[in-house]
Structure formats: C-alpha cells, structure tokens
C-alpha cells in the first residue's frame, strides 16, 4: 500500500487571524483511492487543499508527497497534479479551446482536450468566449483544465456544484475512470450524494481538526442503528415496525409479520452521510 500524501501534525495560521485554521491535522492518502475532505464552510478544507497543492508553503508540520518532503518539490510537482477549482479560473475573453491550448502549452504531457470537451458536452461551445459560458459550463471547463496534463493526482473542489444531473453524472464517471487507471483523487464537497458515489474514504474536518476518518460504509455502520424497518398494509392502513438486526432470524414477531402481512418496504437502519456530516461536524442545531 503506497501513500501518495502523508500529512503529519499539519498546522497553519493566517497572518491576520488570531486562531490557527489548521490545528495539528494528520492523515494519509492511499494511491489509487478517492478521498473526500468534508466539513462546514470555514472548517479548513480549502486551506488544507491549498497547502497540499503548494499554494501555501508557510505551514508547520510535515507533508510527504510520494515519500519526499512536499517543500522539496519544485515546479515539476505540477506536471503530476491536476487542480479543479470551484471558482472560474479561465480568461473570459478567450474561447474554451484557446484557454486550454494556452495552459496545455505549459505542460510536458497533454491529453486530447478537444475530445474531453466533447465528452463534457462542451463540444458545441468550445469556440465561444468563456465569458459567455454559464456557471455549469465553467465548472465543466475547470474540470477539463484539471485533467489537461494527464495528472496522477487530482484535486477537485466541488466538482459537480451547479451541474444538472446528466452533466454531474458525466463528471463522476470521468472521476471513476480516472481512478480506475490507478490515479488518486482528493475531493472537497458539500454534496453527500457525490461522496457516497465516489469516495473510498472520507475525512471530516471541523474548526481545523479532524473529527472523523473512515470509509463511507464503516461510518454508516458506526452511526446507523442496527435495525430493520418494515412498512406493511394492515386493514388498508400503512403501518411501520422496527426490529433489531441481532437475532432477527429467530425473532418470532418479525417472522410472523413477514409471513402474514403484505410488505410495502424493508429498510435497514443505516444512517445517511448527510446525517453523519451534521453529527460529526457538530452543528448542534440539527443534531
């Protein structure tokens, strides 16, 4: 198991801030996995990402990239890394193709960006000035910019924000395709649906500290209740009943019910990632 990033006791404070934004965070990112960094606004997700992509260098602690200190890497680091920002990052007076042509000229390795634009449903608009693009089109163009240099590690900030379900699906499929080639993805997002569909591991961060770190499945098991909920017809009325999973096969009430009534639905009691997000990032109003 190879770690692409190993972050040890990372600390960072903005010069004008009284409090540290990142307070001794440690985690590692395994090669070929999709990692979600989740947390409320201002939790320190973006700052962590800026540090990992070397936009912020004056941090404390140690970060290893492929076993070497991140600070020892020069511009060659960006040959291997792709970054998809949430906000627009293109020249508005240039077309999508002109933007990508210019940025791709700065890398040694390139992909066929025309083909990628077509996959992202931007084929018909690729010769339009980016200033005329809708928000969703700019988000897709940002994604194309991130993949321009055929990176090994991809950092994505809200990669599907503002997209319709079809285009969001296309982006998610491309992310999974990227991962299937053994590449690593680091995502920050508020969309728990994306996390469930994409992430192998999630890290919850709150006020600069990690509050939870696990796989989505394990988190659901940890925070969910181990029970089964049945909905059934009883005298033309819908009724619900919950049963503990433990000893379910010997639970006579449960067995009688499934034998004798017309079942409408059966659900396991696992909680959603949204509930877990609220629980572990500590917004007590919703707990």
């Amino acid at each position, binding site marked *: 198991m190879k770690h692409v990033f190993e972050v040890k006791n990372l600390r960072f404070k903005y010069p004008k801030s009284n409090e540290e934004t990142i307070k001794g965070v440690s985690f590692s990112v395994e090669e070929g996995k999709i990692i979600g960094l989740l947390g409320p606004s201002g939790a320190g997700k973006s700052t962590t990402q*800026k540090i990992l992509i070397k*936009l912020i260098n004056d941090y404390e602690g140690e970060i290893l990239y492929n076993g070497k200190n991140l600070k020892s890497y020069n*511009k060659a680091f960006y040959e291997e890394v792709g*970054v998809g920002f949430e906000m627009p*990052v293109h020249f508005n007076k240039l077309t999508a193709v002109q933007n990508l042509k*210019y940025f791709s*000229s700065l890398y040694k390795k390139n992909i066929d960006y025309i083909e990628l634009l077509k996959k992202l449903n931007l084929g018909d608009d690729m010769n339009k000035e980016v200033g005329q693009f809708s928000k969703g089109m700019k988000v897709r163009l940002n994604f194309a910019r991130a993949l321009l240099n055929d990176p090994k590690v991809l950092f994505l900030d809200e990669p599907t924000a503002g997209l319709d379900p079809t285009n969001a699906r296309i982006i998610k499929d491309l992310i999974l395709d990227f991962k299937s080639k053994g590449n690593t993805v680091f995502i920050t997002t508020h969309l728990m649906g994306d996390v469930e569909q994409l992430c192998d591991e999630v890290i919850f961060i709150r006020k600069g500290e990690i509050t939870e770190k696990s796989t989505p499945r394990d988190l659901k098991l940890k925070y969910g209740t181990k029970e089964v909920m049945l909905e059934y017809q009883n005298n033309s009325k819908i009724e619900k009943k919950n049963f503990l999973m433990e000893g379910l096969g010997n639970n006579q009430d449960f067995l009688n019910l499934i034998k004798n009534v017309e079942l409408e639905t059966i659900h396991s009691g696992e909680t959603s990632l949204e509930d877990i997000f609220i629980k572990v990032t500590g917004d007590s109003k919703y707990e």
Partner: protein
Amino acid sequence: MSDLSKLIKGELIRLYKYKILIVGIIVSLLWVLIIGLSDKESIEGIIPMLIFMDAGMMSILLIAASFYLEKQEGSIKSLLIAPVKLLDILISKVIAALILSLISTTLVLLSAILIHNTTVNIILLYLYVIITVVSHISIGLVITLYSKDFGSMIGLYAAFAFISLIPSIFYTIEIIPESFSTVLLISPSHAGQMLLNSAFKTVDVLIIIISILYLIIIPSLLYPLVIYKKFKKYAIEG
C-alpha cells in the same frame, strides 16, 4: 520554446484580446496628433513628457488593471498551478508591458522625427524607457498588491500620480527653481522624466546618474522584498 517565452506570448495574446494593446496604440496616436499640432520650439519639452506618460504612468495603470482583472477572473490561479516559476510569471508581465511601452515610444518617436525632424539619442532613449517602465511597473504591482479592491487601487494610483507628478509639473512650468532639481528626484516620475529629457537635450550628468541609480534601486528592492513575497498570497486570496 521556453516557459518564459510561452508566458510572454500568453500575456501578449491577453493584451490583444482584452483590447489593452489597442487602447495603448490609440493613446499613442493621440500623442502623435499632439506632436503634429505642436510647433518645433515646444516639441523638445513635450516629447519626453509624452513618452513618460506611456512609460511611467500608463505602465503603472496597465499592470495594475491587468493584474486586478486576472485576479477577478481567477486565471492567475490557473497559472500558479502550472509547472512554471513564479519569477517567470512576473518577468513575463513586465516584458509584455515593456513591449507595449516600446511600441508606443516608437510611434511617438517616429512621428517626432518625421514631422519635426527632432534629434535624439535613440539608444539612450530606449535604454531610459526600459529603466522607467521596469521601475514604474514595480510601483504599479505594489499598488495592486496593497489594494483591497478596484476602488482602493484607483485611489492609491491617483495618490501616487498626484504626489509624483506635481513636482515634475511645477519644475516644468518653472514654479520650482532649477536648483531644486536634484531634490525633486525623490519622485520616481521626475527621475524618469529627467532621464527621458536627457535623450533629447543636455541634462546635468549628476542628475542622470542619480536618476539611473534611483530607478534601478526601486525595482531591485520592490521585486524581491515585496512583490515576489506577496504576489502568490494576493493571487490566491478570496
């Protein structure tokens, strides 16, 4: 093609697409018109001033507005995550602005020579234009880096222009006596204008030396100590 050449090409394309190049040329044509309407006697004083307006004040405004726009669009972030050195990004901006200024200087100079048969030391003029542009761009970048928004940027620019140009104007219209000329060199704009003057007419050697040294010291301090350190932080803010 080196990274720097690619970045310079990108900057020039940007200047063209954003019509900054066209605006620069239109302003130069306005200077050409002024030269055409001026008489031969007054032209010696006017030409260095017009060239300075481009090399000095326009350079500051151009770099400040251009960088501000780039930050607003976020395109500067896209450059910062590309495999190019921050130093090359900065140099490309300076060279692109310099090219713009040299185009303008050439237009003004050509019209002065063709219309009024003006005599000038061309090599010295271009050398002094380069020194003036590089020093004033460093001032423009500092103004941008310390501006919270577009309004404060324009405010700082106006304050600099007022403080810097007033001594030069008073000197030109002889409100300030010539004996104060050396003291007035504290204004980078006055130093730049004295250098450009010296390509057209005789100027005290001491004033030329002080101006050259001063305009070289300004960017030598501002680029490494302020601009290079603050540029990345400013670009990724917000």
